[in-house]
């Protein structure tokens, strides 16, 4: 049974006034900020707070898709895979890997505040390959390679604050069968996973008072990271290490700089504790 013509179409029987009314509403959007407010409450309700997922930008997604980073399968369940096909899995998981997905597990202090916007604009810098970072990601000639990090002892320079980069939404390219299969059958970016593992280890060592071990672990994390990969968490741990080593004044200065640069960071509460009067 054929559908009637829509009123917005020509020769549909609707007059021009009725068409105007319909067209005025066709692409209406939610008010600015609504998405972030609802996301904050959702993340808390669904237990996403422990994973600190942030909303990616379409630009980040498209850029990462170009890099062709393999991503770990969401699940083996057919419906999840079918869903992933519909929403460009390669872009989704690449975004999680490359665009500053922050993982902080098992800590209530990382839970975002209910009213704070939890999404952030993320940069799209590629992760440099490292001999010990696991399987190399696919090279993309369109992305300039980053310089190899120095092997000298890091001086714990404060993270450079990244201004939010707002970009208009773009239409994501439809996933091809090959890109989808690669994304599903591949693995989550190993460099990001390794960085997250090192930071978890450093956090545990700090909690246990193993300061020398924590310093070594954080040094390795710096060596293996790009500037944007989990940078806030790394900086927060650097500050904590300084404080626990007795360097309260530099720790306090770094903490104040961190809070000025990232007032809404999920690490803000912890970092604030290192600000000394």
């Amino acid at each position, binding site marked *: 049974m054929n559908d009637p013509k829509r009123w917005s179409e020509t020769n549909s029987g609707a007059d021009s006034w009725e068409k105007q009314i319909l067209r005025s509403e066709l692409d209406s959007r939610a008010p600015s900020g609504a998405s972030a407010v609802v996301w904050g409450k*959702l993340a808390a309700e669904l237990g996403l707070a422990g994973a600190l997922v942030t909303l990616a930008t379409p630009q980040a997604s498209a850029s990462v898709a170009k890099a062709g980073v393999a991503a770990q399968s*969401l699940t083996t369940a057919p419906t999840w895979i079918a869903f992933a096909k519909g929403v460009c899995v390669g872009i989704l998981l690449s975004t999680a890997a490359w665009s500053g997905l922050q993982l902080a597990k098992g800590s209530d202090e990382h839970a975002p505040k209910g009213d704070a916007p939890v999404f952030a604009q993320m940069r799209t810098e590629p992760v440099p390959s490292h001999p010990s970072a696991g399987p190399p990601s696919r090279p993309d000639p369109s992305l300039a390679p980053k310089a190899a990090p120095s092997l000298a002892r890091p001086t714990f320079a404060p993270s450079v604050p990244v201004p939010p980069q707002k970009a208009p939404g773009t239409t994501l390219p439809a996933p091809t069968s090959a890109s989808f299969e690669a994304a599903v059958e591949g693995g989550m970016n190993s460099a990001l996973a390794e960085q997250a593992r090192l930071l978890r280890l450093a956090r545990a060592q700090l909690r246990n008072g193993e300061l020398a071990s924590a310093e070594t672990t954080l040094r390795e994390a710096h060596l293996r990271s790009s500037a944007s990969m989990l940078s806030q968490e790394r900086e927060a741990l650097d500050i904590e290490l300084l404080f626990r080593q007795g360097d309260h004044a530099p720790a306090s200065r770094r903490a104040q700089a961190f809070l000025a640069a990232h007032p809404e960071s999920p690490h803000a509460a912890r970092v604030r504790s290192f600000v000394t009067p």
Partner: protein
Amino acid sequence: MPPSSVMKLVTPEQAAAYATLYREHFDFVWRSLRRLGVQERELADAAQEVFVVVFRRLSEMRPDSKLTTWLYAICLRVASDARRRAHHRYEVFEHAESRREDSAAVDDMRELLLSALSNMPLEQRAVFVAFELEGMSGEEIAEVVGVGVPTVHSRLRLARERFRASVARQRAGRASPGDE
């Protein structure tokens, strides 16, 4: 604390995929709820409710279903519940709004549309919104509302008649008592 059945699904990969779904479809959910009659002050809560359902039932989505169709079905159920809860409080409020817009010689197209939609029963409104504003086919709408395609076409025809009559009344500047 979320139940364990939810917690076990929150792997970084799945959370990232969910976040992208949210980002790409938030506007669609918001405007669908508004068009289906959820009051402005309840839209944020209703949108949250929709995405909670999405999170918990994503694995139930049929592989051959369109995502927006599935989302619209959830929005319709949430909007229906919200309207039922608000019925006694807001019924008079909606009519008062319509009268105020009529007497002010409405030149805001969007308010005209929402006011016209508010004069439809939800079953007609759902079909009209899905067909005329979201471009869903009769078959997709039939799947959402759980009726046959002929019933969808019938409801669309009735919705169009109400829409036309409501718009004509508002243009004429007469008060528009609800005729549900």
